[in-house]
């Protein structure tokens, strides 16, 4: 029998965990939507927007659950549009600006390669709601990984210019990838409760996928082991997130509770 205080701690960790998933999907989804109408080719523009749409759909499922767990009578929309940057729990990798198409697809690839095994593990989560959302999102993540891998390989092993840009993107983003595998007390609590997997296992799978595909893309994996941290626990977001939210939230901030 677990004590009352432990239960409270566990439910706090579950809320934190679910918020992280929702914020990852929301922030990356919004970044992808910033490409709408400016993609390098019509097909890619449509693909970027559709990827964004999948992620925003996943956000709705995660944040609706987070809002229920929170029990403060807030909706998924409230969580998305009325929280400040310090309340967000997304990975720093995902708030990085789009820069060029190469950066955008490299960021997507590094995340997809994590998201696929991670969601697959969550499908057998002890928390049924988490398992259901993971099953739904996982199929979409697999599809996203197929596309982001193809593009990273095609552009990495492409022209001199495309290769240079992909290597730049990898070098710049590499130190942000490690945060996906940083294990804190929430991750430990979720793993102990059989709600989420041990991130070490996901890291190993991620490494295999990423190494193999970057090799195929003729890109050099950076030596650096430095890891930027502070996004998933909300302690130290970069300035990019604030700017992004200023645009994303302006309508709800200016006209609170307005609806279509």
């Amino acid at each position, binding site marked *: 029998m677990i004590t009352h205080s432990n239960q409270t701690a566990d439910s706090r960790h579950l809320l934190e965990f679910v918020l992280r998933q929702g914020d990852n999907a929301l922030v990356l989804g919004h970044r992808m939507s910033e490409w709408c109408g400016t993609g390098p080719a019509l*097909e890619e523009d449509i*693909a970027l927007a559709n990827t*964004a749409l999948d992620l925003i*759909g996943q956000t709705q499922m995660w944040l609706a659950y987070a809002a229920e767990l929170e029990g403060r009578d807030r909706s998924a929309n409230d969580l998305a549009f009325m929280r400040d940057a310090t309340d967000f729990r997304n990975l720093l990798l995902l708030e990085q600006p789009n820069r060029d198409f190469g950066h955008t697809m490299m960021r997507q690839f590094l995340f997809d390669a994590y998201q696929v095994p991670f969601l697959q593990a969550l499908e057998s989560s002890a928390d049924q709601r988490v398992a*259901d*959302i993971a*099953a*739904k*999102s996982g199929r979409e993540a697999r599809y996203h990984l197929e*596309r982001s891998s193809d593009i990273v390989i095609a552009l990495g092993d492409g022209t001199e210019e495309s290769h240079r840009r992909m290597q730049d993107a990898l070098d710049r983003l590499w130190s942000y990838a490690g945060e996906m595998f940083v294990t804190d007390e929430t991750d430990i609590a979720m793993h102990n409760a059989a709600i989420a997997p041990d991130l070490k296992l996901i890291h190993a799978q991620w490494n295999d996928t990423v190494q193999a595909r970057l090799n195929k893309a003729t890109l050099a994996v950076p030596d650096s082991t430095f890891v930027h941290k502070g996004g998933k626990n909300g302690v130290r977001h970069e300035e990019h997130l604030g700017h992004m939210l200023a645009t994303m939230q302006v309508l709800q901030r200016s006209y609170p509770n307005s609806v279509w």
Partner: protein
Amino acid sequence: MADDQASVAQIREWLDAVPDPEIPVISIVDLGIVRDVQWRDDVLDVVITPTYSGCPAMSVIPEDIKTELGRHGINKINISTQIAPVWTTDWLSDKGRANLKGYGIAAPRTTGVPEGCPRCESVDVEKISQFGSTPCKAQWRCKSCLEPFDYFKCI
């Protein structure tokens, strides 16, 4: 249950007249979106399932269901969304698959490759993009008749 209540089979038939908002040649029943229909006293519970998480049609479909069933005198309807077990393209009916083809959209296949060009049947086809005009479609091209076509993504 009141005697004058329509049967669930009848209601499913009526729902088969509700087109998918983005691909009007297939109904929401063909697509496998309608998961359950049940009377709870005088309220009709309809459970629907999203195809893709972010599919914008999911906000239109409940309205379309209410309008269609309202025409048959059913006005107390409770529509809920359920995501598990997860929807897959296997839920598409045979009638739905045939209608897609007639409309110029190649039906989904587990191989990830369309059976052939929906216009000229040629199997000499290539992928243009993994995504298309809606979240559920990819863009392909026929190398025989040179026409581009939509392929219903398989998930």
